[in-house]
């Protein structure tokens, strides 16, 4: 998210908390009362991978359930404890008229809303529709387009409601997810990096692919969180965690152009799971013919 947008959001936050992402403030935490904090997990348009990350905490899952009441998590349980909820994890993007309504119900029943994953924080892979005419998409996939209800654009949760924290990743890193949950329970700010994948690469002592073996790499403009996974596997970063703070995307593109990448290739490079994140969207649009 660009700084301009952040400023706008801050203004909104100070004013009428309508939509956007907050700066985390110090609070007493959710453990102050003697009851367990109530957690809800909501799904919008997504692949289920980010909520699966919670179930992928095999060593921690039973301990989590001892400390938190998993009150509403349909993928895991048919039991639903009514809201309000202390923390709502929201997976997925808003892409249907029904979901655009439903997300407000989630906000109304939740003390804290945490958007998890690329879909919830940028619109996800399905935001590729934002660059095309969605009507043509429907007719190319479904023989009877009339049955399908969808919005023209796939958008992040913060475009619709006030979001307390955004956790990036396609998928999210499960340890980061645990950090976010435990931070909010104890009333502190999640301790997660906002620097680029490059820093992770340097900390791991990995040879820079950008200069050494040259696959296109989005590392310099992508937020850390994966522990430089792709470079570790000898491939360039393809931007799962979305743009870092103040990314210089055009400078990176210039570099790739100079070593022979075509504009069509550059456009596709920025159009993946975070194609609708402002910095990546603008950069890809610069190469649209």
């Amino acid at each position, binding site marked *: 998210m660009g700084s301009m947008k952040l400023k706008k959001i801050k203004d909104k936050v100070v004013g009428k908390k309508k939509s956007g992402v907050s700066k985390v403030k110090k609070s007493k935490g959710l453990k102050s009362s003697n009851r367990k904090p109530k957690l809800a997990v909501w799904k919008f348009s997504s692949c289920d991978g980010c909520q699966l990350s919670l179930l992928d905490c*095999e060593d921690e899952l*039973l301990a989590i359930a001892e400390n938190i009441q998993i009150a509403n998590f*349909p*993928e895991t349980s048919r039991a639903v404890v009514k809201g309000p909820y202390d923390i709502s994890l929201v997976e997925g993007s808003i892409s249907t008229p029904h979901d655009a309504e439903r997300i407000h119900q989630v906000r109304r029943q939740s003390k804290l809303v945490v958007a998890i994953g690329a879909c919830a924080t940028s619109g996800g892979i*399905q935001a590729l529709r934002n660059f095309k005419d969605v009507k043509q998409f429907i007719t190319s996939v479904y023989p009877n387009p009339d049955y399908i209800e969808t919005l023209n654009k796939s958008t992040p949760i913060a475009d619709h409601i006030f979001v307390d924290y955004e956790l990036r990743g396609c998928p999210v890193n499960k340890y980061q997810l645990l950090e976010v949950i435990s931070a909010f329970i104890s009333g502190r700010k999640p301790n997660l990096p906002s620097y680029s994948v490059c820093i992770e690469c340097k900390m791991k002592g990995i040879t820079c692919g950008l200069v050494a073996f040259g696959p296109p790499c989005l590392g310099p403009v992508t937020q850390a969180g994966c522990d430089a996974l792709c470079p570790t596997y000898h*491939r360039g970063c393809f931007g799962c965690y979305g743009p870092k703070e103040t990314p210089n995307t055009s400078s990176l593109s210039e570099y790739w152009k100079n070593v022979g990448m075509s504009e069509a290739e550059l456009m596709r490079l920025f159009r*993946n799971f975070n194609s609708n994140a402002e910095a990546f969207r603008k950069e890809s649009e610069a190469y649209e013919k």
Partner: protein
Amino acid sequence: MKNKIIKVDCLARVEGEGGLSIKVVEGKIVELNFNIFEPPRFFEAFLRGRHFSEVPDITARICGICPVAYQMSSINAIERAFGIEVSEPIKLLRRLIYCGEWLESHALHVFLLHAPDFLGYEDALQMAKDHSSIVQMGLRLKKIGNEIMRIVGGREIHPINIRVGGFYKLPLKSELKELVEPLKWSVDACIRTVRFVSRFSFPEFERHYEFVALQNEGKYAIEEGRIVSNKGIDIDVSEYEDNFYEEQVSHSTALHSVVKGRGGYLTGPVARFNLNFDKLTQTSQEIAKEAGIEKGTNNPFKSIIVRAIEMLYVCEEALRIIENYEEPDKSVVNVQPRVGIGYGCTEAPRGILYHRYRFDNEGLVLDAKIVPPTSQNQKSIEEDLYEFISGRLNLSKEKLTWQCEQAIRNYDPCISCSTHFLRLNIVKEE
């Protein structure tokens, strides 16, 4: 209790969103809709114009539970379109990571999603209070499946190491050897799992399905094979669309698949087990027989036993692959795109997953078709429910609703994939 409306707005313990609505008037079902209301995401549309090298990473995002299936079906199709043959060690590594995905996905379903139904718990966390060691065993099995995916693929969800022509980086022999001891434990744990789930009480319910699965000489088909059925289908993957077609229904964003001229069919663990029983390892076959289940199983509720047997099989298979693994010289073969069409089909944990792509000379996608297992099973799920409920209309609404949910969970439906999933909506007008 002549008229009933049974309604499950959001079906729990499935991956994705769906519901069921059933309307009963004067003791007869007048309407039964298994709804998938997962938002449509239009993968087939936005794959157009993408480079072949990007396709496996994009299609992985269709499903966070079975990304390897999507990567493998797309890679099969692409390699076939370009006439690429990969080396035997690469094929085995692909089978290994697929074994990891089956183990992870089946363990999730057997222990966390399906077993609570049979034991009367709302979820596995409640079940853990009484059956702590069982749930912990399930979580550990799931973790070992994830470990295979992490070591071979880089990470569990949306692996990054799989590419057209091979892998980005080959796992070291020493890294794979770390899996040997956990997998030996897993073989024993899976045998205990088969014995545990086979003692559940199963509703008396059988149907005569057309079972559809991949089949392969000499091995239990996972990552490649011909498409076969118990009613005479025996075709190459390229002939899929000549034999099956998809129809759209108003109550679902998933398309329903049928066998041309015959109707619904069943794909997934029970189909594979029935068609490929003799390809299982000797231990898996013996443990299956001991559990009272053999080729010719027609009770969909027993799919939980079949999944446990498949877990046993993939642990043995993973051990075999690891013990014979020698690092190949090259991680990837040269890939030269060309104009053409490619077809790919693999056995996702939930059943056959079909992909077809057409490419231009630069290797850009001209069009794509993806048929996920849950949309293929959707008609079968509705037919199961119709027959299952007809004999049970005297049950209380609460009990019937739960049993319907359980019947749907037999399929481990992955709704995220099939939207192109479920809202139980049993309308009993009283």
